């Protein structure tokens, strides 16, 4: 999520937690904040259709650039940030008025297809002296074709975001009814990379509903190079925690059910710009909790690799998996349990 959707403390906590584990965090829409750059060892700069806060100096300060074509929660939709979250600082970074709803474009203004995007990528490489890897992030819509086109455009990394991925705000009908689940999308994307002989050459990062080390291990076994984590990282910072119950009630919800990021009244101080609420998240404490969560994921991933006889997590493979349901077997193209043993 962007700075604007998240508060500065949340951004700093994400940077601290990720850095402590030697991994990266991402700016989201709305530009780069000094808190986030300062606390993040590796920071990926997102380039979105809105171009909010975009400038070449920040591109050069980033460790990688992610061109956001779409988001799993709303593939085909643009950004949305409601007026109640747009304080003076957020408005200033976006050069838009305070307190007014912002709806940004769903299409990039300066390219319309992979041929144009290839030129855009060349521009970004030139601006950053050919030093920064370029990611392309797509929402899971038609992942086989989208991955193929991202590779054609010259991406170093494809980020595939499945429909379980979160957002700061969009129409409920978009979240629930557009896009395809991560499980099926991942398989299609891996197929595209393999057909192009680019699997493990162009990296594939998968996101959308990653919660545990088991999810990470299964994604890697199916062919992902890495995963990225959004909602679960927010939950490590106390999103939906059983605290400040009365404030959840004021929003008409309860801990465990809250999806009120759009209101700016986040009871736990994560998705808010309200200075009083924001104090509920200490960035140092939050960073420690995120680090602990990521450590746990890593240990779980290693445990599962060893249990499957693998000395490296990257050696996990689809043959290590079985599906429990017909639907999952069809989507992931992993054999159903009853078929195991009958294979040649």
């Amino acid at each position: 999520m962007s700075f604007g959707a998240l508060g500065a403390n949340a951004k700093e906590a994400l940077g601290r937690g990720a850095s402590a584990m030697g991994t990266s965090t991402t700016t989201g829409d709305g530009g780069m904040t000094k808190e986030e750059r300062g606390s993040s060892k590796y920071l990926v700069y997102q380039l979105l259709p809105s171009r909010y806060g975009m400038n070449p100096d920040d591109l050069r300060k980033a460790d990688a650039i992610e061109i956001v074509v779409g988001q799993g929660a709303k593939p085909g939709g643009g950004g949305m940030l409601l007026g109640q979250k747009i304080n003076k600082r957020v408005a200033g970074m976006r050069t838009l008025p305070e307190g007014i709803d912002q709806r940004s474009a769903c299409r990039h203004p300066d390219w319309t297809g992979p041929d144009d995007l290839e030129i855009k990528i060349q521009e970004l490489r030139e601006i950053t002296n050919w030093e920064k890897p370029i990611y392309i992030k797509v929402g899971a819509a038609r992942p086989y074709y989208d991955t193929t086109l991202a590779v054609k455009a010259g991406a170093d990394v494809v980020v595939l975001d499945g429909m379980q991925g979160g957002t700061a705000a969009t129409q409920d009908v978009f979240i629930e009814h557009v896009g395809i689940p991560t499980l099926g999308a991942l398989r299609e994307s891996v197929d595209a990379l393999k057909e192009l002989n680019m699997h493990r050459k162009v990296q594939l990062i998968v996101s959308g509903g990653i919660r545990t080390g088991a999810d990470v291990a299964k994604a890697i076994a199916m062919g992902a190079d890495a995963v990225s984590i959004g909602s679960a990282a927010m939950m490590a910072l106390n999103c939906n925690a059983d605290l400040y119950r009365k404030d959840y009630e004021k929003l008409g919800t309860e801990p465990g059910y809250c999806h009120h990021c759009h209101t700016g009244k986040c009871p736990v101080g994560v998705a808010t710009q309200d200075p009083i609420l924001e104090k509920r998240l200490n960035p140092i404490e939050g960073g420690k909790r995120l680090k602990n969560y990521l450590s746990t994921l890593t240990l779980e991933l290693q445990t599962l690799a060893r249990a499957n006889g693998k000395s490296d997590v990257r050696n996990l493979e689809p043959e290590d998996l079985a599906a429990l349901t017909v639907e999952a077997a069809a989507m992931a193209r992993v054999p159903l349990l009853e078929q195991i043993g009958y294979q040649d």
Partner: protein
Amino acid sequence: MKKDLKEFKTFPSSTIKEIQRAAKEGIYQIRGLGAKRKVPDFDDLVFLGASMSRYPLETVLQKILLN
């Protein structure tokens, strides 16, 4: 829900509530985070693990043996 009452499968109470909210407000609902519906996911897969046909690796012991 009362035991002897039968809910509409097509119109569960959450759907009725949403129809009535839309009828009142005349605009779609905006919200954050991700999908709440159930879709096939990684929980529908399991690892086979190892036993005889494939051996598991030790943790500390394996490191000692490898070194």
